[in-house]
């Protein structure tokens, strides 16, 4: 049972690994950006896993709710709302750069681009 309680964090570690591997091992720029977004999503899972309380509910205090209602921790949720928006901003910017790279070089494979730059 102990390990089941940590399963979330293990999945977080695995996702982080997959994301980083995707960034490092692939030379295709768009694929790396997908890896980057998985890498960032993994962190969301870390934070949101922290907010859960057994028997709790979303932190919305309805008027008339019983006084002993257990609520989830609101703070990690706020942080991750911020982080999600940061993530999409980074992704959008990176994709725009990828599009410009394609237009300037005709390819989005980093190894080919490196060759082209070396020829100069």
């Amino acid at each position, binding site marked *: 049972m102990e390990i089941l309680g940590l399963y979330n964090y293990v999945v977080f570690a695995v996702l*982080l690994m997959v994301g*980083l591997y995707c*960034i490092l091992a692939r030379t295709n*720029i768009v694929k*790396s950006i997908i890896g*980057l977004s998985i*890498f*960032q999503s993994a*962190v969301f899972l*870390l*934070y949101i896993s*922290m907010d859960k309380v057994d028997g709790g509910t979303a932190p919305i205090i309805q008027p008339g709710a019983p006084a002993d209602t257990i609520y989830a921790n609101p*703070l*990690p949720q706020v*942080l991750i709302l*911020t*982080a999600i928006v*940061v993530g999409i*901003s*980074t992704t959008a*910017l*990176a994709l725009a*750069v*990828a599009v*410009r*790279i394609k237009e*300037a*070089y005709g390819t989005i494979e*980093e190894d080919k*681009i490196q060759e082209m*730059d070396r020829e100069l």
Partner: protein
Amino acid sequence: MTLYDQLPALVIAVLLFTAPITYMMRLHGFPWAVATLSVVTAFIISCSLAATVFNGETIIYEMGGWSAPYGIALHIDALSALMAMLITGASSAALIFGARSLADEVGEETAPAFFSAWQLCTAGLVGMVITGDAFNIFVFMEISSLSTYVLVSAGPDRRALIATYRYIVMGTIGATFYLIGVGFLYMVTGTLNTADLAARVGATENIRLVLVAAGFISVGLAVKAAVFPMHQWMPRAYTYAPNAVTVFIAAASTKVALYVLIRVDYAIFQNSIANHDIQLTLFLVPLGVLALFAGSLLAIYEKNLKTLLAYSSVSQIGYIALGIAMTSVAGLTGAIVHMFNHGLIKGGMFMAVACLAIRYRSVNIANLAGAGRAMPWTMAAFVIGGLGLIGVPLTPGFISKWYLVLAALEKGGAGAFLIAIILVSSLLAVIYVWKVIEVAYFKAPRANAVPVTQEAPLSMLIPTWIVVLLGIWFSIDTRMPVGMASRAAEILLGVK
């Protein structure tokens, strides 16, 4: 609340408030004017903040009126005020300096976006140094990084795009590492406020999580700061960015990551993890030493002047890392002073390079033959900066190296080894600076090259010389930088 009490928030507010206005400006020249106005205002405000905290006071400003661990508090002491001054100063100097060169490099159409990004970059960096909240540092780190990507990608060469892409990937990995570290810290303490974290981290039993958090934060920030093996994004980014942008980011942006590293390691971990100073030494000293040599050697074999200076920055960051790793007042003073001084030196040198670039089309060193005669004032500024990199007395580089050597002396046997390394790497700096001087002063221009006879325009030359002279001023009258740095070091190490 008087205006004076509001200053800590105003320094951010004035930049953020005007950024959308800059973006909506479609008139010629206005974006630049608005951006410069707001950045200079921020500079004046940070100077007045620095004057307030000069004697070791700390200003706490509670955002939204919510007290510290619940809301976000700004936390300004001597160190953050010094950094804020460096950032806003570098930003305004680069903007005023770049009025001419940016008009060439950045199109009329993208100017509003570009200058708005510039303002936000300044805001992000200042936000990182004055905040007292670990997560807030992440948010402002992202503001500054995203806007730096935009600034770098405005470079005229297509290689700027690849440089930006690499920078995005490395920067995002660094920021995400930082975020993971903060997450672990939050997990063991339940708070995000740095002062509160410092108080609560020591009480935790889950020492593994704290250790790994410290590791992630340090590595993430080291990526952002371009500490040696994580530096790959930097030379390209510096080389292909527009010249004025290089002046700004070389002077300010990596230093801010180092600042956060100092803050987190000293204020949070130093008192709570046993043997943290040894771990810090083991992490940073090898990297610092490697950086000194690798950076200088790469610079010696480099053909492009901007890339050469970027590699030289890698080695200079090595000095700062060494200073941080010493965990003594003298070492930390040296590191902080060198952050400030290196900002001045590199800012001045990249300004000189930008002056060269406006007359010579390419800044390949081979191309610059005869520049010593064609542009005497520019090259003189460059040479003074180069002497600063080497650490000749009466230049700012000397002061910081002096403190580093003092700190190394305190360490005994290992210190002698460090002193030897510092001396050797200064000699390497002589080689790469000389390489440029030799071509510029002692080589005849190529026969087929278009002769350059004109000195750089005064609008660029005057700011360059102001920065250079400021550097010399601060190496003679060291009260301001050294005074603030040693006070900051004392506060961080808790000796008073």
